[in-house]
């Protein structure tokens, strides 16, 4: 009886592999297996600084961290107060401006999520995630 349950589970698990493999092939150009963010959606500190006034810096960290220190001119936009902060961000944003989103470090997710929501909910196209986040900015600027 035990062996039949295991055999059934193995068959189902193997069957599910087939369409999953097909889907992986279908999305092979759209999904990066190396990083959560496609290279085209990331930007280094140097490159972002080159953009100068053509870019808006968005701080995706919690309010306390933003209040403690942030990139000069950055606007706070975090998921905790998304509905409240998004209109403030949109008031500053103008078409054609690039958006650079950052959070604490390389391992944080907030910038990725905020960038995703800006693309999807606010329909913005030029949204980039800062490689290395606030830590990387600090290293290059202080």
């Amino acid at each position, binding site marked *: 009886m035990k062996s039949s*349950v295991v055999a059934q589970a193995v068959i*189902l698990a193997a069957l599910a592999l087939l369409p*999953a493999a097909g889907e992986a092939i279908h*999305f092979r150009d759209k*999904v*990066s297996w*190396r990083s*959560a963010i496609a290279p085209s959606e990331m930007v280094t500190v140097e490159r972002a600084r080159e953009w100068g006034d053509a870019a808006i810096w968005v701080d995706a960290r919690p309010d306390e961290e933003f209040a403690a220190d942030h990139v000069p001119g950055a606007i706070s936009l975090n998921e905790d107060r998304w509905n409240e902060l998004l209109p403030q961000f949109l008031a500053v944003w103008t078409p054609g401006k690039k958006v650079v989103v950052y959070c604490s470090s390389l391992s944080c*997710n907030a910038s990725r999520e905020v960038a995703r929501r800006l693309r999807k909910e606010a329909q913005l196209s030029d949204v980039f995630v800062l490689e290395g986040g606030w830590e990387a900015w600090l290293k290059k600027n202080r």
Partner: protein
Amino acid sequence: MAQEEQMNQTSNAERPTLNVELSGGATTSNVKRQKSYILWRILDFVLAGVFIFAGLSKMFDLDPLIADLRHLQFGDAFVHFQQLSVASPVEFASGIDNFKLVPWPVSVALAFYLPWLEIFCALGLLFRLLYRGALTLLIILILVFTLAITAAKVRGLDITCGCFGHASQHWSFPSHLATNLAILAGLVVLWLNAAAKEKRAD
């Protein structure tokens, strides 16, 4: 002689009564069995529906459709159903990656694989094919999801499990946990029932 005749008559007269009682009992038992079968099938369908929804919500952007159904706007729901867009697997992969339990490439592989596994197991439940294997896999999946969201909560990670795609994006930890435990209870009950039936058949 007369006594013998009477005895024979009595015996003959009683036999049909006994038979009626027997067939009546069998009918009651059959009705009971049918009722319990229907109840088990309803549970099969409910749980299969939950997992099919869970799988599809990771593959398609169901947000507009769910919003329409929630507001009972069936006309709009039909239009949105026709315009269903495929969700990027990156979104679910990011959801898995947020747990910080597996490296990114594994998150991507799971994002491709898990929705299909859920759907195949749900179909197994619906059509009672590879039934106990499907139940076993679903129990393992729901246990892993529950442990993962609990571990994330303990580690202070403020994340959603992504178990039901965007639909569960704003669920609190207690509602996630309660939903998962209710599903787990249903699956375990079905598994035990199937095991008992198999034992009886042996």
